[in-house]
């Protein structure tokens, strides 16, 4: 097992380096981070030369990549080209915010999806099952950004018409809230709903399929045949085994979500990883973009690995050499 994990991690190192170089080359070759600075009046040529000198912007791209790598390793991803802001300070703040959003959304999604999935499998072809299937297809076909906008339209129009503030449609907290927790919930509720709907649609469908497969298997028939109560058959024999494939899907999805729900965070102006990335992209600054990509890609690799390990751990038939 340990050999397997080490080998997988070693395998991903060259892939990660290749990916980081590709993105670095792409961003550096096509965008000019000093573009806006050069257009601004009152910026002396000296300042521009200084920045160029400090970030080695006059060197060829492969060399600049190694300068970046050096800065990233020795100085926690270094600092931005414009303004010399230390990247790690900003990044650790936005990671915390994204984690709040993603964990809340995923917990709600897993809970609801498991209940929906199990119930529609047990009552296959019932009205509830058809309803759940319809919801899940609708959820998979609705663009995330549009759902977010529609919720905003609803909340804003309720506010305009009745002067009731149920939820906020932007930012993470008010300047001076009376009750911090309540205020945070009012701010996070809409983005959490948006993220959760997409996840519920995906997970519940998966849970239903995996539960159906288990229910129709031989050992469940055996359990019924020896006279166990239906409750025990479903919960102990069925449910627990049906959860195994779902863990993989959740782990994979969680890794991808950590990269920041880019769209959701942009629409709700949440100070998370997604918004950080979009801002960096608009500045054409390779340093924060690279830091972001490094964190996200590592998260994806690690969670892919966790998904595989968890599967082997939960299902003793799977063995990794």
């Amino acid at each position, binding site marked *: 097992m340990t050999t397997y994990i080490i080998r997988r991690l070693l395998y991903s190192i060259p892939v990660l380096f290749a990916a980081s170089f590709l993105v670095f080359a792409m961003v550096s070759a096509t965008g000019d981070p000093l573009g806006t600075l050069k257009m601004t009046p009152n910026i002396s040529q000296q300042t521009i030369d200084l920045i160029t000198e400090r970030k080695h912007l006059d060197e060829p791209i492969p060399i600049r990549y190694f300068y970046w790598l050096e800065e990233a390793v020795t100085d926690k991803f270094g600092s931005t080209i414009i303004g010399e802001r230390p990247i790690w300070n900003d990044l650790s703040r936005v990671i915390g915010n994204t984690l709040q959003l993603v964990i809340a959304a995923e917990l709600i999604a897993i809970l609801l999806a498991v209940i929906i999935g199990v119930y529609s499998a047990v009552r296959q072809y019932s009205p509830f099952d058809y309803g759940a299937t319809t919801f899940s297809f*609708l959820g998979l076909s*609705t*663009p995330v*950004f*549009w759902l977010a906008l*529609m919720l905003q339209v609803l909340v804003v129009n309720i506010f305009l018409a009745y002067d009731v503030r149920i939820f906020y449609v932007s930012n993470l907290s008010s300047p001076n809230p009376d009750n911090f927790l309540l205020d945070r919930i009012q701010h996070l509720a809409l983005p959490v709903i948006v993220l959760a709907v997409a996840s519920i649609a995906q997970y519940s469908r998966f849970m239903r399929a*995996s539960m159906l497969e288990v229910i129709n298997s031989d050992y469940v028939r055996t359990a019924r045949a020896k006279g166990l109560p239906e409750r025990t058959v479903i919960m102990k024999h069925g449910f627990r085994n049906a959860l195994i494939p779902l863990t993989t899907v959740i782990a994979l999805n969680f890794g991808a979500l950590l990269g920041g729900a880019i769209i959701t965070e942009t629409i709700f102006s949440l100070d998370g990883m997604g918004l950080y*990335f979009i801002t960096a*992209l608009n500045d054409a600054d390779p340093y924060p973009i690279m830091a972001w990509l490094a964190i996200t890609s590592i998260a*994806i690799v690690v969670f892919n690995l966790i998904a595989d390990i968890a599967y082997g751990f939960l299902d003793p038939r799977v063995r990794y050499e």
Partner: protein
Amino acid sequence: MSERSAQPPHIDQPPPSVGVVGEPQVAMQVDESLELAYDSGLELKARSQWGYAARRFLRHRLAMGSLVVLLFLCIVAIFADFFAPYAFDEPDFLSITLPPTTENNHFFGTDFLGRDSLSRIIYGLRTSLWVALVVSLLATVIGTTIGAISGYFGGWVDNGLMRLTDLVLTLPGLAVLLTISVYVGQGEPMRVAVILALLFWTGFARIVRGTFLSLREKEFVEAAKASGAGDTRIILRHILPNAVGPIIVNATLIVAGAILVEAALSFLGFGVQPPNPALGVLINEGQSEGLKFWWLVTFPGLVIVLIALCINFIGDGLRDALDPTQRRVRG
């Protein structure tokens, strides 16, 4: 549902005349059970594999309904000049931001330049569908080629190509799309399509590679080799047809995915750019003036949901029809 109706009906009652004493039974029985089978709707005609698939698909009510709706939307999009009441960029400063009304045929209202929202949606539909189709086509070609080469030749070719696939899968998709499109592909719908295709091909590569890996050692491949068929012929004529079912299903589902992703990119301002109308662009323009003009945001979004829903249902029906092995996993 469809899988049930596709099964032959049960023959419950015993045939009435069978078993009458003193009659030559053996020959009669065969004849009559055949007749009975015909009566109860059991078809004995030999069907090709594709015949069965087509029949399963035609009986999938949801998929057929979706196909009709989608075809209608396609026709409206293709003949946009005929169906749209106005041109998509025709301003009318006397009727600015009208809510939906039957007056002057502004069924979906007008935007802040007085342009008719319905017409803009119809032209946007054309752009979005066109982009999605090109993405699906390109991704199929790229992914199938890479998967076939990788699975057929194996060895270092396979290793290299699969690392390339890993590379694309390791990168956070939307982020890479955004990064590339900022610098290379902004604006032109076709550029956006090419860039999307560069990220969507991995699914095909994996499916096709899997088929090739499992089939390349089979006897029929060996027989083809022995009778002098070249690599290209074996790949195209002998192995690839076995993967056609999953490829078609995947290609269909990618159209839905591409429509959603293109809309998101265009909405964020990194995809298709105005004045090209795409559904995501329309939503972006609609929300830029605050959320007061709800119709400018609602209707283009509803159209996206409708297309994606139809394509997902069609893909589901196709999977049932073409890829019966996957049915159990789907549930």
